[in-house]
């Protein structure tokens, strides 16, 4: 075949643009035969290379300074310069300050005096001792693709001329002299800070060169702050987040201290600032009324005080050491001789309460158990509806504030390097106190049927506790009692319950044998299985990921794990899904506007770009997430905010009550909230569980990528799609058959018996394919009741029984639920419309007024009609007298997990349950275990046994 020399394919081939394999093979065949053609292709390539060179060597044409500023301002809204700007983009001076740390002699002179403006900048950076003091000459015009102060070049030199007395001072040239007094005076509120603006030192100035003010990055109109952060003993503190908030504009900028404790704000817009320095384990330091003037360089040294009660500060030898230590043994306290005891410094009583409140009670806290017993007594006295979890602010709160105690037993201590003289010792970020928070749990007691024939609770599909327990065990310690929520352990596993078929959103299954830990008792298992849906059946979703990117999320098992988890989820999304990402730290922002699920690359990219830094203001983040959710609200779809955090909302509204109200209100409008807990050390389990409960979502703790896969990939539909909401269970026990009963777990889900039929009372949502299991330990009628029994009543006979009581029924299980279609959708949509209109028009614009009126009407209708009518399912439960040995595998496995939980909680009702028994039941009940979750549980049991020994 002949291909003409004039065929454009030759050019395409020469330029590597010929994509068709067959054509390329043809051309190559011709080339192998024709030398002429080979020359021609070579000619094409060389001409192309010339053209390439020629076009690329056209005089560089850059944007003007003003144009660039405009773009940067547009891009930089709400973001910090320091994180944002690569080093080459800063001025020579700023770049050098970042690259060469502990350089304090800083001089700037103008090399030229031209009428077009100062075009040359020479900075002598004198480094007293650092290894970076090799003279460096950098032509910034070449080092980066852009020249800051165009068009002439900028020269920076570093020399070794520094002398000791020059250290700690910042030099300015003549023009800045007058600034001195003004600058110092302008910072009246700065405590223990030194701001120095030194006089120009004439002898340093090259003769004949008139000096001009600093022209740092964007220096013509910005100010710069540099400084060191130290602890009380003068030790350098790396990793301190420093936030500079412009009081007028509200724009915050962040800086982080480097390994020498130095920080730099290269280009701050002049104005009034508030500066905050923050590091975990230290008291936050705030400087208000910091006035920055144009083209000034300020120095602010900060010394931070250690926070906390008798905080044990563990020191490490290098930043690297800290990193590895923090990730391997956080959440525990290492007691060793090298610890330095620091007294409590905080004078603030509230802060004291907060600190103590955050410390979890331990197994050995006698005081804690005392308080626990007090609550238990009250419950046994006949208030089935109001057990521990229901009174977070009352007894439990008092308990948590009143009885600080030590965290769980430490893991086997790691060998650590001996301290060396002359090294920089740094406080370990988080290991010094365990501030994990858990709501206190008191085991449900046995309740006499004659006193309390009804047991009512809300279902709970959370699984967080299991993963958290696993984390503790894997770290070599036992979990704190209150971190063990038995129902969450049991519900972590899938049980082979049959789905509902067509008849409803879920099916109920019952099984009863003797309780393996007390053969006198019976064990009743109630299993609900929600209908499964396929990915393609999933309704359109509007997901808002609300991601905590505060400094505390930097650990590898936090933000990076969030990112990995999200990447997995993104792969599972379809065009019916919409994802937005809102991040919050010191400020909140929309990192990804609502984007369709099939535009995977944009979502992946946004996830990749998540970075941690700054303090946490959880509440405002939640508000922005809800705004985004409402803006993209999908009627009759799934609208859900997924919060990923370590739960440490340390700035802003941290009042649980306010937060819970906000979330509850939003859940009423159809935007639910699920919580994913990450990390350790300052993990706030109680906060997250509360938020997910109020947001009517589920709450999972994610400690490994496998767990992320379970929650976000394997069970994505369960996580996203509720098939029934406000699912409540009420069991009426037959006093003829049952003397007493005890609900195992669900302590914080107990409801008052009246609430069962009250459709305004909210309860849990069951997701597609979810299995929910509840276990009752039952004392048959006539058998002694272990604890909590009351004396026979003096004034009344035991209640009369109906004819049904003489049947063989143990009891009746009633389940109420509502269809997930929410009556509130129109309200949410209207509210979104109103918000949209309000943002465009004033409040008296006719459209706004009309929408507000319509919203009010809808709300009124809803109040009158009630929030949807619930449906009722009823099942009579009989006891066939089956022995535990004959129980199904799933039953044995669930019993094992419950026993495991009771042992970890050291429950008074654990009977003869111990880990060995739990292990044998688990092995008997392991079954197919397609995902390997049960195998892992068996491993955990072994682990717990070896720790207990």
């Amino acid at each position, binding site marked *: 075949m002949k291909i003409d020399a004039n065929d*454009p394919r030759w050019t395409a081939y020469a330029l590597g643009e010929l994509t068709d394999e067959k054509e390329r093979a043809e051309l190559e065949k011709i080339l192998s035969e024709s030398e002429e053609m080979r020359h021609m292709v070579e000619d094409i390539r*060389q*001409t192309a290379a010339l053209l390439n060179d020629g076009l690329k060597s056209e005089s560089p044409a850059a944007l003007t300074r003003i*144009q660039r500023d405009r773009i940067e301002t547009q891009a930089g809204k709400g973001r910090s310069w320091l994180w944002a700007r690569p080093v080459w983009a800063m001025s020579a001076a700023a770049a050098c300050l970042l690259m060469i740390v502990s350089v304090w002699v800083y001089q700037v002179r103008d090399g030229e005096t031209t009428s077009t403006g100062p075009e040359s900048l020479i900075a002598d950076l004198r480094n007293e001792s650092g290894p970076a003091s090799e003279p460096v000459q950098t032509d910034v015009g070449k080092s980066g693709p852009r020249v800051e102060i165009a068009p002439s070049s900028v020269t920076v030199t570093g020399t070794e001329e520094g002398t000791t007395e020059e250290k700690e001072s910042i030099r300015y040239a003549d023009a800045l002299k007058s600034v001195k007094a003004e600058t110092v005076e302008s910072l009246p509120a700065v405590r223990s800070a030194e701001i120095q603006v030194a006089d120009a030192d004439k002898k340093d100035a090259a003769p004949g060169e008139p000096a001009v003010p600093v022209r740092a990055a964007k220096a013509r109109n910005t100010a710069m702050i540099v400084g060191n952060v130290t602890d009380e003993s003068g030790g350098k503190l790396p990793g301190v987040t420093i936030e500079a908030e412009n009081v007028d504009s509200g724009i915050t900028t962040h800086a982080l201290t480097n390994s020498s404790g130095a920080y730099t704000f290269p280009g701050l817009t002049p104005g009034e600032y508030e500066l905050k320095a923050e590091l975990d384990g230290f008291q936050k330091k705030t400087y208000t009324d910091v006035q920055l003037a144009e083209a000034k360089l300020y120095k602010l040294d900060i010394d931070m005080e250690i926070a906390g009660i008798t905080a044990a500060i563990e020191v490490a030898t290098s930043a690297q050491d800290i990193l590895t230590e923090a990730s391997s043994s956080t959440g525990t306290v290492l007691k060793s001789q090298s610890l330095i005891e620091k007294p409590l410094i905080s004078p603030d009583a509230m802060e004291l309460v907060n600190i103590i409140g955050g410390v979890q009670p331990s197994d050995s806290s006698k005081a804690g158990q005392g308080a626990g017993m007090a609550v238990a007594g009250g419950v046994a006295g006949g208030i089935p509806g109001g057990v521990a979890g229901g009174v977070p602010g009352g007894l439990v709160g008092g308990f948590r504030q009143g009885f600080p105690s030590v965290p769980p037993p430490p893991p086997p201590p790691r060998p650590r390097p001996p301290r060396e003289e002359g090294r920089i010792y740094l406080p370990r970020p988080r290991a010094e106190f365990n501030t994990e928070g858990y709501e206190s749990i008191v085991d449900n007691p046995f309740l006499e049927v004659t006193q309390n024939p009804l047991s009512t609770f809300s279902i709970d599909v959370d699984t967080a506790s299991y993963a958290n327990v696993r984390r503790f065990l894997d770290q070599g310690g036992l979990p704190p009692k209150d971190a063990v929520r038995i129902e969450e352990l049991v519900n972590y596993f899938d049980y082979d319950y049959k789905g509902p078929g067509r008849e409803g959103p879920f099916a109920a299954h019952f099984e009863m044998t003797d309780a393996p830990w007390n053969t006198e008792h019976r064990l009743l298992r109630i299993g609900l299985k929600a209908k499964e849906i396929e990915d393609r059946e999933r309704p359109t979703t509007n997901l808002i990921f609300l991601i905590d990117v505060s400094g505390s999320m930097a650990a590898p098992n936090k933000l990076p794990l969030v990112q990995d988890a999200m990447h997995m989820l993104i792969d599972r999304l379809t065009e019916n899904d919409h994802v937005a990402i809102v991040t919050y730290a010191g400020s909140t922002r929309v990192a990804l*506007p609502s984007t369709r699920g099939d535009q995977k690359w944009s979502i992946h990219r946004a996830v990749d770009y998540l970075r941690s830094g700054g303090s946490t203001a959880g509440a405002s983040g939640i508000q922005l997430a809800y705004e985004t959710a409402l803006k993209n609200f999908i009627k009759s779809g799934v609208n859900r905010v997924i919060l990923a955090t370590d739960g440490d909302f340390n700035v802003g509204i941290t009042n649980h009550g306010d937060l819970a109200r906000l979330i509850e209100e939003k859940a009423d409008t159809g935007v639910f909230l699920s919580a994913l807990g990450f990390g350790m050390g300052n993990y706030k389990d109680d906060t997250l569980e509360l938020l997910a409960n109020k947001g009517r979502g589920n709450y999972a703790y994610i400690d490994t990528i496998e767990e992320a896969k379970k929650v976000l990939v394997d069970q994505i539909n369960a996580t996203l799609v509720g098939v029934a909401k406000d699912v409540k269970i009420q069991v009426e026990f037959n006093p003829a058959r049952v003397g007493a009963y005890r609900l195992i777990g669900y302590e914080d889900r107990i409801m008052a018996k009246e609430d069962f039929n009250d459709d305004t009372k909210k309860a849990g949502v069951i997701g597609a394919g979810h299995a929910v299991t509840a276990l009752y330990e039952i004392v048959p009628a006539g058998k002694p009741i272990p604890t909590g029994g009351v004396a026979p009543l003096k004034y009344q006979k035991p209640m009369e029984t109906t004819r049904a009581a003489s049947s063989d029924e143990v009891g009746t299980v009633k389940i109420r639920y509502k269809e997930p279609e929410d009556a509130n959708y129109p309200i949410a949509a209207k509210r979104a419309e109103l918000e949209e209109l309000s943002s465009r028009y004033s409040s008296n614009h006719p459209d706004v007024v009309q929408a507000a009126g319509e919203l009010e009407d809808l709300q009124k209708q809803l109040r009158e009609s009630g929030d949807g009518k619930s449906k009722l399912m009823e099942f009579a439960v009989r006891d066939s007298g089956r022995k535990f040995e004959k129980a199904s595998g799933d039953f044995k496995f669930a019993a094992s997990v419950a026993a495991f939980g009771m042992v970890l909680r050291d429950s008074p009702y654990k009977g003869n349950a111990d880990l060995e028994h739990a292990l044998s039941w688990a092995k008997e009940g392991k079954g197919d275990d397609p995902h390997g979750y049960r195998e892992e549980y068996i491993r955990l049991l072994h682990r717990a046994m070896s720790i207990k020994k």
Partner: protein
Amino acid sequence: MTIADPDWIQSVLARYEQPLIRYAAHITGDIERAREVVQDTFLKLCRRNSPREGDHLAPWLYTVCRNGALDVRRKEKRMTGLDDARLQQVPVKPEFHAALEQNEQLAEVMNVLGTLPANQQEVLRLKFQGDLSYQEISRIANLSIGNVGFLIHTGLKTIREAMQTRPDLKVARREK
């Protein structure tokens, strides 16, 4: 409102600022106008809902830049009443060639390039200044891929032949 990642914008600026200005200047014939067009292009990028990258970023930038530059040219045309022929032969300002003086060979290539029809010049610029693929160019310039291939082929051929008529500048086998 979207907040673009300043870090990312910076990197995009670093990569595309100059090629875009050159490209726009070629269309508008005026470096100041080109700067404005490129500024607007980046401002649009900052405001974009979903930032683009990889395969999508360059074509997007060039397309926005091209449309902006063509708008400018159309407006200029209305204002000054220049005819199409003159517009297509946009004079390249001397400052563009400053770097070429040292290299006669390059200078000659650029001279010949300046004599090519506007559409050939444009695709050659997109190809060799913008480092874009045929496919990307086809999307930016709204041409078929085959058309792009033909224009580049013809343009290169003209340059090649012009160089061969100047034995002193004839392409020497270069080592790379």
